[in-house]
């Protein structure tokens, strides 16, 4: 055996087992009793302390909530911090402090609290929504989308459906702001699927669909709204707009007319109605019109295109002898034939004349901008019959 081990085998100095024998059980019993008594005493003290801490925490929290509601964010932040002194991990204290800090535009500090809260309860709706808003401020699109979706599917303490809807609406607004129209349309479709017949909500969704340039869904939403409120001028105007933008001019005419009747101050709808009337009046390809009517429209359109050319000459395509003739040359060349008699003689000219008219209007609008009136109507008709 190694020498050091020899030493370890010896009993320690003062380790006399006999010394402790008679009294140890008694001592342990007494110490246990003393521990119990002290434990009870400290429990009493602890209750006193906890009650005081809770009361102070609640008092500061109540003051903070009052100031937060009054938008006195600086005072609210101080008060919520004071409340947290007494209950550091209290969820609502932290959440309200974060709200106050957001009110003070101290985003980083608010984020620190919110992310801690998120770690604790990632399913909490308001925390996700606030984090999404911070991500929006910081242009962190991916993070913003993630938190918004979390908020949409999160747990909300009250009015869960309403809060989820609001979160989605906020997300849609954000998507529209960053021009992510396709994603916005997808969110809107999901939103519309869960909406009731409330005309205000349908109107809002319809308007958002319009902003997302999904006019068919917009029109559908407005129509649902109109079922409940047939004479709502705003809804009628929206439906008119959606129908107008989707090229359904007869429908647009009906809605816009009703909208203008319902609200005489709606200048936009009135202007749009006028344009719609012109479109309907100037479209030679409408069914249910006579040949004479069509020829008259073509003559009128051709004349309007000529006027448009005079006011705004598109650049010459080329000076080369092989280059195609300019629009003005084409118009001049065709002009003698575009008469009521000429069209009657040769109905095929309708198509050629209108093609030239559409070309003139398109190029003119590119060079000189879109005009109102007949020119705009012709442009819309051109768009309507594109590819047909």
């Amino acid at each position, binding site marked *: 055996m190694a*020498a050091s081990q020899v030493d370890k085998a010896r009993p320690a100095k003062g380790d006399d*087992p006999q010394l402790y024998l008679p009294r*140890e059980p008694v001592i342990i019993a007494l110490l246990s009793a003393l521990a119990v008594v002290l434990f009870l005493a*400290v429990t009493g003290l602890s209750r006193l302390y906890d009650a005081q801490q809770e009361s102070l925490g609640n008092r500061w929290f109540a003051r903070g909530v009052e100031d937060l509601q009054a938008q006195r964010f600086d005072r609210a932040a101080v008060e919520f911090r004071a409340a947290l002194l007494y209950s*550091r991990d209290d969820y609502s204290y932290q959440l309200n402090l974060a709200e106050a800090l957001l009110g003070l535009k101290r985003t980083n500090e608010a984020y620190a609290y919110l992310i801690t809260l998120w770690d604790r309860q990632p399913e909490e709706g308001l925390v996700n929504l606030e984090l999404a808003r911070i991500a929006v401020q910081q242009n962190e699109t991916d993070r913003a989308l993630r938190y918004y979706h979390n908020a949409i599917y999160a747990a909300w303490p009250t009015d869960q459906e309403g809060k989820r809807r609001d979160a989605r609406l906020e997300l849609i607004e954000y998507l529209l702001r960053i021009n992510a129209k396709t994603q916005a349309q997808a969110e809107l479709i999901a939103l519309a699927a869960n909406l009731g017949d409330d005309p205000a909500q349908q109107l809002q969704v319809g308007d958002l669909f319009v902003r997302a340039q999904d006019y068919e869904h917009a029109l559908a939403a407005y129509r649902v709204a109109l079922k409940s409120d047939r004479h709502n001028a705003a809804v009628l105007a929206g439906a008119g707009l959606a129908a107008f933008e989707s090229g359904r001019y007869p429908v647009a005419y009906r809605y816009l007319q009703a909208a203008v009747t319902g609200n005489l101050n709606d200048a936009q709808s009135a202007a749009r109605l006028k344009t719609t009337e012109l479109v309907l009046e100037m479209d030679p390809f409408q069914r249910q019109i006579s040949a004479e009517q069509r020829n008259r429209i073509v003559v009128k359109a051709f004349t309007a295109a000529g006027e448009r050319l005079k006011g705004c000459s598109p650049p010459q395509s080329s000076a080369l002898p092989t280059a195609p003739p300019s629009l003005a040359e084409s118009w001049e060349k065709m002009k003698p034939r575009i008469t009521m008699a000429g069209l009657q003689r040769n109905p095929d000219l309708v198509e050629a004349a209108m093609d030239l008219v559409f070309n003139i209007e398109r190029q003119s609008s590119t060079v000189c901008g879109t005009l109102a009136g007949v020119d705009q109507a012709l442009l819309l008709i051109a768009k309507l019959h594109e590819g047909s």
Partner: protein
Amino acid sequence: MDLSSNRTLARADNASALPVSPSERSAKALLQSVFREDRFFLVLSVFIGVFSGLAVVCFRFTIGWFRIYLLGSGIVIAPVRLLLAPTLAGLVIAALVLHVFPTVRGSGVNQTKSALYIYNGYIPVRTAVGKFITAALAIGSGHSLGPEDPSLQIGASLASALGRRMRLSRDRMRLIAPVGAAAGLAAAFNAPISAVLFVIEEVIGHWTAGILGSVVLAAVSSVVVMRWFLGSQPLFRIPPVEMKRPSELIAYAILGVVGGFASVAFSSGTTAMRARCKAMPRWTQYFQPAIAGLLIGTIAILGAPQVMGAGYVYIDEAMHGQFTWQFLAILAGLKIVATLLSFVSGTPGGMFAPTLFIGAMLGAAVGGAEHALLPHFTASPGTYALVGMGVLFAGFLRAPMTSVFMVLEVSGNYSIILPVLVANTFAYLISRGLQPNAIFDVLTRQDGLDLPSMEEQREEGILRVEDAMQPVSGPVLSAEETVDHALREADSAGADNLVVRLSPEGWSSITKAELRTMADAEIGGATVSSLLNDRRIPYLHPDHPLEVALRYVERWPVVPVVSRADFGKLEGVISQRDVLERYREFGEG
């Protein structure tokens, strides 16, 4: 003496203590076997932990109450209170310290070491009471001190009182104060591993299974009690710990360097100012804590109320990005000043919390600055704040092991280990390089005591058997050879002391004079083994500390030194003269 014979000896010793046969076993004997002092000491450690935990809970309540009644319950404190509370509390504390509780000055770590090394574990109960009241008043009124070290001393004091009541042996009494200290610190810190390590690293300096068992039991039981009343949440909310890439360790190394210099500034400032304050006339001691309080209040009024008290709330906020890095750096500097003022004025209170505060602020400041410069290179400042705490702990308190485990235990995240190791190593090396003596050692010497420095002990060169042993110059006798033959071999080699290889194993030694006596008595034909039946001697290994050899070289002229891999392989021999000669050279060196 071989392994089995020693075991027999040990069993025989135990048998003499408990002289019972199976047939005589009785309840009394059973109790005897259960309540041997070492076992009783373990049981007592649990009670020490429970009582210390209860005391620390009450201490925390008292600090809270003082804080509310002296500074108010809110975050924004009226300037009048900021000035008056620490100043007036300072006057009361000075009077109490000078007239009622003269032993409660300072942090409490050195007092606990004094109890261990000077006073045989004795710490008066009055110290616990005094520390409790004065430290709670100081911290509650806004002095820049923490509750951990006072808790350590309160725990040690309670343990000492309990040990005295139990009339423990001197050896146990010496150990009981550190056991209580570990319990107090563990409860205050809510970190039992760090408390155990700190007490072993900085107070006791070494450990055995018995000591460790007691210290651990006390620490665990005190933490259980503390958590029962105050909850199990850590002192601060831990931020998500992240390290972006391995190269980020460079950033942590920079933090270690900054922390090392800050530690040196803090500790050299503390020791220099304390020496000056101690040298001032006695009457000034009535006002020193009050003046410190007044200055701290002024700092608070000027815009940094965060420096008041222990400051855990603000550590928490720093970890969660609530301050700019510039303000964090200012806070670290101001906290150093405030803590210096409080501590050197003799106000009772601890250095742990301020150290953590300074470290956290400094860490978050360095992390924040690095993040501002290289946003894609470094992680959030929260992780740096956490590492910064360990950095100051290593650099200022010079407890490197504790500093690492403290951060691990507090963060509960093992992935922080690399940054902590890197930063703490830099801080510790810089601090040790620029300031050879650790803060606690300097403070002890300023108090006129000479307690063993744990750091010096760790660094001390240890002499080993291999440093003093000599190669075997003479013949190695076989136990089977005759005395006459052995004598001839001894004569031809000119050796006076010979090593004997026993059969089948073991070693002994014999002198030439003994062999000659045998030969003269005409028993030269007998084998050497027949003369050595009772002389199997212990052997040593080359890596044994030299002090172990000292225990045996007096009894045997030469002690064999054998290989650990092969006990039959003789590496050398060692004699009393070799040992003393080596010690003499070492002393001269």
